């Protein structure tokens, strides 16, 4: 019978704990966990639980990164003005919006954000600005040109883009750009839709998914939208993050809620082998990057937050039968 000793001229180490100084390819037996292990290095994309929102709700608008995020507005089970900050571990309540709303567009960072549009007893055009301490309701000419909810948005507090949304079914093609003080119309989406996801910047944006159960993806160059390769799973109410050339789309509804997660490489979408821990629609948008994103809240109404990361797997358990 072939043995490890026969093949490699040495025995497998029998250790109470994983060694700290090991070479790639080194094999050992961990007597505490009763597992045979090998040192390898590979990356895996995976979701993990994060701190729960203080106010459970769906359709939260978002801004910032996985470790410095701001989640605001939403519904659960009333239109919400709640605003919360996430530090990578837990959410902390911050001063509320002036106008409660849901399904609005959120843009910016944890300390410099804006919210525009949304639903509050009718679609609103109002824009509010966050300076890290409080929300300020802006007046004309800071209002959106077209009142609507279930929009997608991206960019920063002084240079943003808001697109799609609804006053009608299946949704609008309207795209508006923000210069820090006013909204102006720009090139329209090719496919009108609402409940879509978006990411990127004002001059390099990506729109994907939407109602009804759409897989269409479009790329914006600062002037016009171009149709590109579609998502693998058509859906609405999904979340997204990243850039125009490196994005993530997750969750949503295909008729029933889905946990499916897809990655965009600038050309095409690829299914990730594993999805969200809790399938949901109406999930937050616009947090982080393709390798470090955040899903907060959703419908059925939940406070659950999940963190998406690309992680390094170093020690692998060897399964034998």
């Amino acid at each position, binding site marked *: 019978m072939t043995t490890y000793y026969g093949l490699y001229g040495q025995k497998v180490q029998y250790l109470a704990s994983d060694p700290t100084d090991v070479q790639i390819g080194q094999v050992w037996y961990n007597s505490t966990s009763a597992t045979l292990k090998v040192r390898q290095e590979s990356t*895996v994309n*995976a*979701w*993990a*639980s*994060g*701190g*729960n929102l203080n106010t459970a709700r*769906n*359709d939260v608008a978002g801004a910032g990164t996985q470790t410095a995020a701001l989640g605001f507005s939403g*519904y659960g*089970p009333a*239109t919400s003005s709640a605003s919360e900050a996430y530090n990578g*571990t*837990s959410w902390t309540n911050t001063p509320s919006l002036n106008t409660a709303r*849901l*399904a609005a567009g959120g843009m910016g960072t944890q300390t410099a954000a804006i919210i525009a549009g949304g*639903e509050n007893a009718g679609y609103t055009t109002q824009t509010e600005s966050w300076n890290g301490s409080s929300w300020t309701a802006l007046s004309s000419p800071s209002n959106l040109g077209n009142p609507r*909810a*279930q929009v997608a948005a991206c960019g920063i507090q002084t240079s943003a883009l808001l697109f799609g949304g*609804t006053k009608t079914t299946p949704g609008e093609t309207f795209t508006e750009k923000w210069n820090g003080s006013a909204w102006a119309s720009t090139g329209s989406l090719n496919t009108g839709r609402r*409940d879509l996801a978006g990411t990127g910047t004002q001059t390099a944006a990506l729109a994907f998914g939407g109602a009804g159960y759409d897989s269409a993806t479009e790329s914006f160059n600062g002037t016009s939208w171009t149709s590109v390769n579609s998502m693998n799973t058509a859906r609405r*109410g999904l979340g997204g993050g990243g850039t125009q050339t490196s994005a993530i789309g997750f969750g949503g*509804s295909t008729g*029933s809620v889905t*946990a499916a997660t897809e990655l965009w490489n600038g050309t095409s979408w690829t299914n990730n082998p*594993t*999805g969200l*821990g*809790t*399938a949901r*629609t*109406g999930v937050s948008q616009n947090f982080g990057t393709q390798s470090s994103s955040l899903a907060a809240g959703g*419908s*059925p109404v939940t406070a*659950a*937050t*999940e*963190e998406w*990361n690309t*992680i390094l*797997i170093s020690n692998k*358990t060897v399964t034998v039968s």
Partner: protein
Amino acid sequence: MAYKYCVAECWGKGFITHSDSSKFQVSGFPGNVWQIPADNQDANLWVNKVAGTFKTKAEAQAIVDVEITAAQAAWDALPDAQKQEPMNRQRPTAIVLE
């Protein structure tokens, strides 16, 4: 694929880690029901870590059904105006565990 079920309350950060998710898929359902692959040592260790209580598929389905029924009743009791999108996305639908 064959699955097992448990009930455990998600406490937030650390409940499911990236390391857990890299080894097996955990899927959450209403009523704090979690589905994990059967015959997976790492999944069994995770249930132990989160102090989960194993349930049969029938027991897990019953828990989910109770939650969905309650959610549907709450949705049905809403004023018509609040049943419209985007406020409420859809009436909660039945979930059949695999």
